[in-house]
């Protein structure tokens, strides 16, 4: 098991360097640069450009900049934002809890609805129920997030007035962040109604962010379930006279869930991508919105640091999933 663990961790080293290189190159390949953006329509004189390049360390050869960057990151220094002048890591950590909170609730929602829907569709295979569920899933999967979000806002917040339009909590509640997770902080604050307000603000963005993973999970569950239901051991179980509930719920579902778990693990990346759009629309103060701003401002340290930190999170989650797999399924370990 230790060897397995070490081999997995060893793979992360080149991945990390690769991501760092891509992030580093990505911001520099974008047309336009920090200094031109700072100047805007007004422009920057060549002397000022030279002075600013020197101040930001952009006048050095790329290889030196990159080397310096990697070693700084290894020491935990992700640099300082060129627009807010605050440390990148500090900005990221301030905003990341909001993204985690939204993503966790979204994935729970996706799992809670997606798996039962998939099972149900598999059991009713070929009927209009199956068609209906899978059709809806396909629509959900293809839905442009920004459009879907605005549609929900106009209907639920604008017309029905059931949910607040955007933000994380009503403006009447004001308390300093403790954990950064609004659901927890609102409880800790002891202010009456704060938790409810935080929860009601979370509903629409969570639904929007959950839509694509939900569709994927439902489709994956359905096909895995169909495959398993065709296996011999399920027929045997049925032949033994077990009730359908037990056959499906215990025997079939367990095995069907293995590929579904993989899918859920893979959704972490999808969630973080989706979060960028969702957060922008719902004014949700997470890393997605922050990263978009940073790209627009050509804030090199923030963009490359942000990409790298997100990649590190995804890598960490995948490592955990891999290790769990090893624990659950000995065959993976042997390979």
């Amino acid at each position, binding site marked *: 098991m230790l060897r397995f663990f070490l081999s997995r961790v060893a793979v992360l080293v080149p991945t990390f360097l690769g991501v760092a290189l891509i992030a580093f190159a990505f911001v520099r390949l*974008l*047309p*336009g*640069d920090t200094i*031109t*953006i*700072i*100047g*805007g*329509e*007004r*422009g920057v004189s060549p002397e*000022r450009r030279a002075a*600013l390049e020197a*101040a*930001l360390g952009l006048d050095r050869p790329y290889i030196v900049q990159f080397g310096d960057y990697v070693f700084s990151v290894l020491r935990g220094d992700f640099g*300082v934002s*060129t*627009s*807010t*002048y*605050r440390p990148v890591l500090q*900005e990221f950590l*301030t*905003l990341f809890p909001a993204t985690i909170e939204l993503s966790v609730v979204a994935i729970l929602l996706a799992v809670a609805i997606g798996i039962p829907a998939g099972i149900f569709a598999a059991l009713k295979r070929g009927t209009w129920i199956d068609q209906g569920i899978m059709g809806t899933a396909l629509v959900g999967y293809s839905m442009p997030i920004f459009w879907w979000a*605005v549609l929900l*806002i*106009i209907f639920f*917040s*604008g*017309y*029905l*007035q059931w949910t*607040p*339009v*955007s*933000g*994380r909590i*009503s*403006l*009447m509640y*004001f308390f*300093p*962040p403790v954990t950064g997770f609004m659901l927890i902080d609102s409880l800790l604050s002891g202010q009456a109604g704060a938790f409810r307000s935080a929860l009601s603000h979370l509903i629409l963005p969570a639904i929007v962010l959950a839509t694509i993973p939900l569709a994927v999970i439902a489709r994956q569950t359905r096909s895995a379930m169909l495959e398993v239901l065709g296996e011999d051991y399920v027929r045997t179980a049925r032949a033994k006279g077990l009730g359908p509930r037990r056959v499906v719920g215990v025997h079939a579902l367990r095995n069907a869930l293995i590929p579904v778990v993989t899918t859920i693990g893979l959704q972490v990346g999808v969630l973080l991508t989706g979060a960028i759009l969702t957060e*922008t*629309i*719902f*004014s949700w*103060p*997470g890393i997605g*919105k*922050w990263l978009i*701003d940073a790209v627009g*401002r*050509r804030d090199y340290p923030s963009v490359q640091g942000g990409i790298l930190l997100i990649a590190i999170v995804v890598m960490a989650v995948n490592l955990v999933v891999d290790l769990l797999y090893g624990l659950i399924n000995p065959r993976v370990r042997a390979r």
Partner: protein
Amino acid sequence: MKLFTRLLAATALTLALGGAASAKTFVFCSEGSPEGFDPGLYTAGTTFDASAHPVYNRLTEFKKGTTEVEPGLAESWDVAPDGLTYTFKLRPGVKFHSNDTFTPTRDMNADDVIFSFDRQGNKDNPWHQYVSGASWEYYDSMSMPETVKSVEKVDDMTVKFTLTRADAAFLANVAMPFASIVSKEYADKLAEAGQQAQFNQQPIGTGPFRFVAYQPDALIRYQAFPEYWAGKQPIDDLVFAITTDAAVRQQRLLAGECHLMAYPNPSDVPAMQQNADLKVDEQQGLNIGYFAYNTKQAPFDKVEVRKALNMAINKQAIIDAVYQGAGQIAKNPIPPTMWSYNDSIQDDPYDPEAAKKMLTDAGVSNLSMKIWAMPVSRPYNPNARRMAELIQADFAKVGVNAEIVTYEWAEYLERSKAEDRDGAVLLGWTGDNGDPDNFLAVLLGCDGVGNNNRAQWCNEDFDKLVQQAKSLPSQEQRAELYEQAQVIFKEQAPWATIAHSVVYVPMRKNVTGFVQSPLGDYTFDGVDITE
């Protein structure tokens, strides 16, 4: 629908009661996050709305709703006859804000004023680089380093600025956000504690609102400053609810989650004007959207060709399609709200037939050209791509074959400056300080060729008038020269002047006292909510 109204009333009530029965909270749905709170470091209006306007004051201020300069922290000033020295008499008894870590021990004085400018212009000032890579962009782009020779303390309440050259726009320049007066005492205290970066995050100013807290990308809280020198504000709390998406801002305004919103989608304005709970304020923007030929490139070096193309453009169609009515046809390079605007000038008529003939007479046939379309939306040009398509179609009618090109924004700005640029560029400008010099000299002066002068146009007569106007002290005399300059501009037609946009500010019906700034700022001093 009844349920809808009842819910709306309930929401409004909750919101009203939300700030506790006594405190009046005003919520502004702003369009983006401020980069920081030290106005000297930035150029974005969004950042100034959150820092310079609520928190700080300047020596001079723009009179509400105008670009006229009035006394601010300086009670009065003297200008030497040669225009080279400005002596400001400071307002006594002006208090700075306090926060958890800082309580001022003295009132604002000359040291604060000198510090506010010195840190921007003097590379040896320890606060010049208090955050790494600090860039004093506006101070530089308004040519302050070349203009200001020295800033001296005459006595505690008197400051003297000595200039290297007479600059009639100087009083307007020191009213700009970058020239906000910061607290030297606060700076010293932070330096002592080694916490210089706080200066940009926990601002201390003399303005109408005290900064309370910023939750990044979510909201900013301010409190009315009880000891504000011009009197306490009618509202108690000011909140900026940061909402990036215009459609979402609109929904929040409709739901009563905010009292006033920035930058609505032009297409949503008519519906909001109809809404019984809202009112929409409108004002001419201090801007110009233009189409600059490269006057160094054949055949655009011929006046007749430029004139002919100007006559081929159907501007009214552009106003309708691109600005969706929220704009007006431009005939001059400066907006009509600006002093010295020459209203006697006649715009080139829209006349494709005559244009065609002029081109033939000029010996131009089968002309092919490029039209550069900006990739971003700006108030002065909400949709350059669409505008380019309309101009392309207009040009086709007079036998000119145009190709539309575009680049990523930063690239676009850079490439369009080149003197050998191929084609005509769509771009625009928003005024910084309400001074005509800020348009005419910056965008059309000979110094700007290869830079901000996208037409690469250097006309000696025009340039002489504009330079001369800069050194005259009286506004009347300057206006006369600028009016003449506009006549030359129209005759020479380096640009097709397209439009000045209209800025809309939707707000709840019960908001009073909000006055739009022609400079496009959102300022909330004097704003109130009636029940």
